């Protein structure tokens, strides 16, 4: 189905659906929380364990039963296992590249077009807008709040930002509004960082704000920043002049028990912020687990690129952190009645080599990995696709990042007419079993 226009696919599916009564064109999701597990979690050590595989494949973890009959996860995810009836799992994801940069673009836009990897050579075609930008274009908010927000820093491979986190041909107005949580400073707004370390709290003081704006403007002029950056800063200042908007980012307004429930990691607090944002109607919130792929050096929680020390890192950090925070997010959304209207997707750019390397790690593996998807009208408790005996390849119902992007579009109700108007093509089709 590669290359077919998304609108045509939707139309065909609508016709087929109306005949058998199974498919829906317009989804019920009002918002999307897209959790980006940058670096690529290992499918065998998370949600597709292979306890009968040889030791050099299966790894050191046992498996645990979930609430879904016959479905087992790695023992590192007991909280998610006890909530498996709240979300669905895709075990047959596969992508087109084992290069973070290229697979990252594919994962975020659904297409390899315009991706740039380690070799620095762009792939053919113009980079597509990221899914969040498309949603932002279609679901632009009248309130003046940004329609697409990223919680987390810019995604990098090495020192280079990857392609595919922005609006592309939709324009800079569809780029994400970015906010970053760190434990030292709380929430930061990178677009304002030339302004003397502004924080939402400091903006309470209008005098300081005016001074900061002047300072920032002077610095901007002297550094010759582009118009689009200026737009972002204008948007940021306009937003933060409004107390109700500033309060959106203020996690201190949450009870300490709720903050603890999410976990006091960057990822945990970022998930909490994502909940606050969708609660206020932001249509698309992307949570970046980390800025960089590496596990050891990162301003965030360290990425999932575990070429070495994979199992120790999974035990000590990434396993319990993901289990804890994602479970808290599901619980919180459910308890607030938001899960039905909020689509939650958690996925990385690829999986990891089924065969363990000689550094107690796993390397890049684009041929098979897993994704979690929940809420927003998606059927819960399902397992879409299977992998083979060593989780090396999909053995049934293979799904691509393009399929996942198309599924998000369908869940949030982007119509074929809207897609056509915007000139948007998605290299995949919705995963119909989820609707």
């Amino acid at each position, binding site marked *: 189905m590669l290359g077919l226009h998304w609108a045509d696919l939707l139309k065909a599916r609508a016709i087929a659906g109306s005949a058998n009564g199974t498919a829906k064109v317009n989804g019920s999701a009002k918002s999307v929380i897209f959790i980006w597990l940058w670096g690529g979690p290992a499918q065998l050590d998370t949600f597709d364990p292979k306890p009968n595989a040889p*030791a*050099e494949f299966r*790894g*050191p*973890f*046992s498996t645990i039963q979930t609430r879904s009959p016959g479905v087992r996860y790695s*023992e*590192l995810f*007991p*909280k998610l296992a006890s909530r498996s009836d709240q979300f669905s799992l895709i075990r047959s994801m596969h992508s087109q590249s084992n290069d*973070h940069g290229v697979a990252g673009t594919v994962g975020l836009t659904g297409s390899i077009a315009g991706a740039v990897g380690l070799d620095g050579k762009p792939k053919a075609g113009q980079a597509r807008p990221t899914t969040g930008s498309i949603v932002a274009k279609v679901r632009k908010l009248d309130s003046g709040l940004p329609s697409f927000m990223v919680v987390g820093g810019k995604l990098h*491979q*090495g020192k280079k930002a990857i392609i595919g986190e922005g609006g592309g041909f939709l324009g800079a107005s569809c780029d994400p509004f970015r906010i970053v949580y*760190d*434990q*030292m400073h709380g929430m930061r707004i990178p677009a304002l960082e030339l302004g003397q370390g502004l924080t939402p709290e400091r903006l309470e003081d209008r005098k300081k704000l005016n001074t900061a704006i002047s300072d920032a403007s002077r610095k901007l002029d002297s550094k010759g920043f582009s118009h689009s950056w200026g737009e972002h800063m204008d948007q940021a200042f306009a937003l933060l002049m409004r107390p109700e908007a500033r309060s959106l980012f203020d996690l201190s307004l949450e009870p*300490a028990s709720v*903050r*603890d429930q999410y*976990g*006091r*990691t960057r990822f945990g607090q970022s998930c909490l912020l994502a909940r606050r944002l969708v609660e206020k109607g932001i249509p698309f919130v992307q949570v970046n687990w980390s800025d960089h*792929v*590496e596990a*050891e*050096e*990162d*301003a*965030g*929680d*360290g990425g999932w*690129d575990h*070429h*070495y*020390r994979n*199992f*120790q890192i999974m*035990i*000590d*950090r990434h396993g*319990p952190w993901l289990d*804890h925070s994602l479970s808290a997010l599901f619980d919180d959304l459910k308890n607030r009645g938001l899960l039905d209207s909020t689509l939650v997707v958690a996925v990385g750019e690829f999986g990891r080599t089924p065969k*363990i390397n*000689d*550094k*107690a*790690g796993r390397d890049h593996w684009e041929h098979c990995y897993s994704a979690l998807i929940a809420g927003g009208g998606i059927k819960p408790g399902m397992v879409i696709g299977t992998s083979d005996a060593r989780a090396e390849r999909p053995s049934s119902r293979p799904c691509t990042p393009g399929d996942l992007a198309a599924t998000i579009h369908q869940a949030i109700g982007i119509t074929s007419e809207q897609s056509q108007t915007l000139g948007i093509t998605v290299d995949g089709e919705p995963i119909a079993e989820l609707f």
Partner: protein
Amino acid sequence: MHFFVAMICSIVGGSVYQLQEAPSQLVKVTNDGSFKSHLVWSPDGKKLLFTRIHQGKMELCTVKAEKSAEVVALVVPSPNTPHFDGHWSPDGKSIVYVHDILQGTDGKLQINEVSADGTGAKILIPHKAFEESPRYSPDGKHLAWVSTRDGNQEIYSIELANQKVQRLTQDQGFDNNPNWKPDGSRIVFASSRFGNFEICSMKKDGTGVLRLTNDSAMDVWPVYSPDGKAIAFTSNRTGSYNIFVMNEDGSGVRNITNNKSINNFAAWSPDGKSIAFISNHQGSYEVYIKSILQGRRME
């Protein structure tokens, strides 16, 4: 002050390990909000050494073993590359640790030794493969550590005077987290040779392996008590990570943290009266000290 006595319900060879706890005696040592791991008590009992991920850097830190103490980063050579999983020499004058030499999106691990004040670093185990978890023997003459130089994670010992390396484990499973018995006769470790991680011990030459835990859950990071009669370790057998204590033969397992949070990296104080650990039960990952008034095998 309210105390209670918890009798571990295990009788092995006519003896029972008795653990007396003071539940109100939980001291919160750190409060900086950063993630911490690999906790070790200094030989004089005054400080704790641990790994902290702080502002994007993984570093060794020390803190006085007291309430609300100030965390001090250990300044080692090449401080901007990750250095972690430290261990004090028996005389407290040196620290061994893992140094990660970053290369692109990959890294090379080696074992370094540095003076306790952070000066005079030298390489003890050059990078050959994955090198991790260095632990001095109680007499300071040997170092046990984990390496993948023969394929998967195995435990090795090096005689520091002559650099003679001995491979102690040989199994398809992962063998890691070594820790010496205070009399130097045995090493306790975590092994996945039985399907998932279990606590085992072996003689210092690698023979006489004993399986000490037998649970479908994960048991890791074991550490002997100062008298060598008990072992503290981390297990997720309750669905969350808790610190457990058992007799050195694996009997009498008892959960001493017993909450639904992450409690990990137990470290027994040199006088045997306290166990330090890292927990997020109050939100962020902080160092706590729990009093254990009495821990001994009762005849």
